[in-house]
């Protein structure tokens, strides 16, 4: 009994020991965080310093060239944006619908389990595998060729699991009473989804979509596999305009246009003999990073804005 009663001194020592551990963990935590931050700061500042002389309007408005100082990223950033547009148009409806179905409609049985496990696994499949699949299906089977459409659909497949999973997470976070309340006043399942579940899940879904797109925009391997180009000095046709070649473009001609994307342009510049192209690569790397960061910023802003509107 006597041994269990601690003196004030002993208690203080115990507390001090506990606090020391606390402080040590805090220091380790800060150190780890600092490493992560340092890496990104070094990376960005290195690119900015190397690439600073290329941050001109010309760099954004010029096509690729054999002369480093004249070479720009026009076809690359336009290509990246258009591919992302197709990716979003294809992946968002499919992914959200699949997520809603799995959460709200599907029966809980072994088939659903199997599907769930497979979707989670799909998210871990190396992107090059999607490229090979797309080369066979989109490029040759469907005859889409080496086009923006093929690239967009390939990346859509790649981010589909991310969107499905984030849709489901977002739906699960909605309290069951919302669903029950809606059903209680006689709404059908579809009406419940349409007026309650999807609007409330939207912030989470959007976050998933943007994170998916941010991953897709940096992908190189599947895009190379399906045949993105390295030198392309023209833009996809603008709908209903007549190009320099005298051909008037239809509404959807641009999706069949050949293209290049930012990561491929960067890769090409880093592997060229002339060291002056390293400057271009650094500048383009920074632009790509800025694109990804601003996409993330949009996601955060939208989430914040939509959460404010939700009142339960």
């Amino acid at each position: 009994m006597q041994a269990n009663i601690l003196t004030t001194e002993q208690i203080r020592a115990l507390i001090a020991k506990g606090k020391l551990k606390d402080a040590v963990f805090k220091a380790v935590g800060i150190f780890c965080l600092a490493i992560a931050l340092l890496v990104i700061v070094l990376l960005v500042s290195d690119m900015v310093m190397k690439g600073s002389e290329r941050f001109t309007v010309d760099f954004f408005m010029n096509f690729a060239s054999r002369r480093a100082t004249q070479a720009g990223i026009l076809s690359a950033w336009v290509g990246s944006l258009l591919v992302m547009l197709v990716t979003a148009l294809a992946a968002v409806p499919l992914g959200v619908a699949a997520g809603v179905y799995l959460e709200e409609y599907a029966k809980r049985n072994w088939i659903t389990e199997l599907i769930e496990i497979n979707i989670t696994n799909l998210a871990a499949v190396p992107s090059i595998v999607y490229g090979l699949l797309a080369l066979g299906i989109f490029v040759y089977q469907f005859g889409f060729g080496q086009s923006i459409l093929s690239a967009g659909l390939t990346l859509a497949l790649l981010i589909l699991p991310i969107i499905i999973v984030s849709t489901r997470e977002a739906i699960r976070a909605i309290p069951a009473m919302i669903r029950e309340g809606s059903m209680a006043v006689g709404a059908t399942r579809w009406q419940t989804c349409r007026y309650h579940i999807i609007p409330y899940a939207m912030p989470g879904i959007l976050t998933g979509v943007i994170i998916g797109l941010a991953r897709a925009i940096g992908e190189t391997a599947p895009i190379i596999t399906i045949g993105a180009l390295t030198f392309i000095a023209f833009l996809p046709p603008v709908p209903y305009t007549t190009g320099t070649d005298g051909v008037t473009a239809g509404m959807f001609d641009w999706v069949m246009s050949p293209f290049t994307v930012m990561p491929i342009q960067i890769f090409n510049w880093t592997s060229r003999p002339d060291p002056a192209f390293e400057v271009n690569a650094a500048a383009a790397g920074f632009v790509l990073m800025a694109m990804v960061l601003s996409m993330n910023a949009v996601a955060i802003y939208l989430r914040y804005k939509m959460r404010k509107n939700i009142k339960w």
Partner: protein
Amino acid sequence: MFKFSKLVSALAVAGVALIGAQSAQAQVIKIDGSSTVYPITEAVAEEFQKAKKNAIKVTVGISGTGGGFKKFCRDETDFSNASRPITKAEMDLCKAAGVEYIEMPVAFDALTVVINPKNAFLKQATVAEMKVLWEPAAQGKITKWNQVNPAWPDAPVKLFGAGADSGTFEYFTEAMVGKAKSSRGDYTASEDDNVLVQGVSRDVNAIGYFGYAYYAENTSKLKALAIVNPKTGKAVEPSAANVENGTYAPLSRPIFVYVKAKSLQKPEVKEFVEFYMKNAAALTKEVKYVPLPASAYVGNLEHVKKNKLGTVFGGHNEIGITIEELMKREAKM
């Protein structure tokens, strides 16, 4: 917000539905293939589009000589860049698909053996010495310079070379070791030549090889090693002049562009070929390759005019062939 997502899905459906109904597309000249030939073709494409005020579109991709021929023989591209002649297997592929082509050498690439500029003992090397250094039997055994030549110091050898998938690797091993793709494996291999440039420039005892352009752009960081020409016995440094006069042998090789015969019926493709051959000499120099003699470009145009189909190599590479010999030979499909 929900309206937005409805609009999005409607657009997606419309998009997929309308793609079937394609309208007339602009003519695009499609080129793909070797990364070695890429800088030349890119320069020509850039100038051609400028000259035509963008009325004709040209695209150039990089999928390697082999990857390029795959697409070429599937009838997907008009031109194929190649850092080696077409192989027997590729010829068969093309034949099966009914793709006929004309072979056009467009420039020389001099494979350059480079050393660190601070290296004082290496002035020249013979093919035999390079063989001792690079053959598969050297793996793990030849690790010091004096094992290759007793006159050289007792210092470690640091080797840098091309990755096993590249045409450069294939040609270098065939020319130096005597058999294509036969090399020791214990060296720093990279498909990215800039990695090799960095490696050699940082180590006094390093030796490496890659295309001449990478040396020419980095002469302050590297020194080119003179290689003894086995025919004359004289050590020759890689330079534009020595490649042109044929003394830099056996490491200089012609590189090619193959054009599909069917595509040549299109006026814009024919125009592109003519533009290529007229401007190749100047543009080749600008991207640090060595141009062929003027007669070769004229010869190529002549072959196009006469529709001289096929390759003059018969499906396998040759070491140390001169351009004059090349132009005189009879091509075969």
